[in-house]
């Protein structure tokens, strides 16, 4: 068991945390990658480097074994079956797969699809497209005064026409946790399937797909200590089996005839061509790493930092805090009269890395009446010192831009 006092040992695993004075608070965009993950990638790239699945020689067998063991690690991590794990290029790709395969097959004219203005573009746009093509209705859960998805408001839009519910588990701008378990229960009562965007939840909390009973969940490696270019789609096996592949070619077929073809079972029918071998091994190593840290530590560290940060930020005059009741390590704000882009440059001078922009959530920016916000986001390797640096950077930026008032 990792103890809070071990934080410095944890930081040793990350090159930049060990060797620079970077205050890294852009974790909702990408997390840093620990040495353990880099070692796993190097092992494959250096000592194996070969293709999988069809090689009879030892190296290829070992690569295949590592690739498929990574799938098992993912399955154990989110508590599903081996064959319910589809490797994709990332969360966006996974979310799109649900829409283009399940959605395009099962959504018909007049059907209703529920999403929200809190979504990342990658969660809602695939369904906007399905709705357009299929002449279905895309319906937005009204957000409450805080811009949260609530069960009450969800009930207002759920009807017997609802076929799909596509909602985020944790908002990448507001840091809110959606009451997704209850929503799933309600959706199932009307026979709708639920596609959960887990990009911001899976890295930060224990997500048990069987307990949630979600139909699909999508997430990315690069936000959970893994590499870029790999993500996961979990789907209930019966649903995956009922769906058609969207890419065709090598590795996903049984028999190919000149004018016809039969496909492998899921998950393989969705993994066309040479797989993302290093990426899968990398996300497997990231899961090993997170398991070693443990979600007890991760959650308590992030909640400690959240409280510490909010207490201070609330007291800074001229700071617009958009989510004072955030549930996670994501905090969105603006400095009055200063454009977020200018804030970001000022922070960069202090080596405080945050993100300024619309965070792929333009509809939410409209709700907040902002063109962009500054977002600071923590992970388990951040410390109170990082928060202090953030607060210092805010104060200094305010002071600096005040000079020109």
């Amino acid at each position, binding site marked *: 068991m990792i103890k809070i006092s071990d934080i410095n040992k944890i930081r040793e695993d990350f090159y930049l945390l060990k060797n620079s004075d970077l205050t890294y608070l852009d974790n909702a965009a990408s997390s840093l990658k620990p040495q353990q993950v880099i070692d796993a990638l190097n092992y494959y790239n250096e000592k194996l480097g070969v293709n999988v699945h069809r090689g009879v020689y030892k190296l290829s067998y070992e690569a295949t074994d590592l690739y498929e063991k990574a799938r098992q690690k993912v399955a154990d991590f989110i508590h599903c079956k081996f064959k319910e794990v589809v490797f994709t290029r990332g969360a966006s790709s996974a979310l799109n797969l649900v829409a283009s395969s399940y959605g395009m097959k099962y959504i018909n004219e007049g059907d209703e699809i529920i999403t929200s203005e809190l979504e990342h573009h990658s969660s809602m746009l695939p369904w906007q497209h399905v709705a357009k093509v299929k002449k279905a209705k895309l319906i937005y859960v009204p957000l409450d005064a805080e811009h949260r998805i609530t069960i009450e408001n969800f009930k207002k839009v759920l009807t017997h026409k609802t076929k799909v519910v596509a909602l985020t588990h944790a908002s990448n701008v507001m840091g809110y946790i959606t009451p997704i378990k209850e929503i799933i229960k309600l959706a199932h009562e009307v026979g709708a399937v639920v596609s959960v965007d887990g990009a911001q939840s899976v890295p930060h909390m224990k997500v048990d797909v069987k307990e949630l009973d979600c139909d699909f969940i999508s997430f990315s490696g690069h936000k959970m200590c893994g590499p870029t270019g790999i993500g996961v789609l979990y789907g209930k096996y019966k649903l995956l089996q009922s769906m058609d592949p969207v890419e065709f070619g090598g590795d996903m077929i049984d028999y190919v005839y000149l004018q016809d073809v039969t496909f492998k079972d899921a998950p393989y029918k969705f993994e066309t061509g040479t797989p993302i071998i290093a990426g899968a091994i990398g996300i497997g190593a990231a899961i090993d790493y997170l398991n070693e840290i443990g979600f007890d530590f991760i959650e308590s560290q992030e909640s400690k930092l959240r409280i510490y940060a909010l207490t201070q930020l609330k007291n800074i005059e001229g700071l617009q805090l958009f989510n004072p009741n955030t549930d996670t390590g994501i905090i969105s704000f603006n400095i009055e009269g*200063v*454009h*977020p*882009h*200018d804030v*970001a*440059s*000022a922070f*960069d*001078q202090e080596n405080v890395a945050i993100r*300024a*922009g*619309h965070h792929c959530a*333009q509809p939410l920016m409209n709700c907040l009446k902002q*063109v*962009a916000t500054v977002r600071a986001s923590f992970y388990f390797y951040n410390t109170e010192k990082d928060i202090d640096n953030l607060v210092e950077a805010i104060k*200094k930026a305010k*002071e*600096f*831009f005040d000079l*020109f008032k």
Partner: protein
Amino acid sequence: MSYGNLETLYRQVIMDHYKNPRNKGLKDGDDFYKIHLKNPTCGDDITIQVKIDNGMITDVYQDGTGCSISMSAASVMSETIKGKTVEEAFKILDNYLNMVKGEKFDAELEMGDAIVYQGVAQFPARFKCATIAWKALAQVMDEHNGNCTCDHEE
């Protein structure tokens, strides 16, 4: 307190143009070339209007929303190129782009307040902010010169 490099980027002149933009607001009339450019990522959105008479830029207006660098640059650009020939404006434009990229540029070339954007070279992430208005100008002048801009390289 030292603000380090920040002071080389945010010069008083720049912030003046940001707070008090020159030639702001669009005009009616179809004797203007008009170009609208945007960078949705950060919300920058700029329109410029340029009147060109006999190869001479006689009038410039600009409007939009964005950060201090992009907004001030639009204002500075409008001042700098008014009264210049298209040829002269192209020279200034090229020189300006070289300067903010941190490449070799002619420090002697008269370019008005635009010279204070030298600090951008140390903030490559702000290059787009400093150039969006100038890129709009380039498109205007290309159009005026009869060069197709539909397939314009970034």
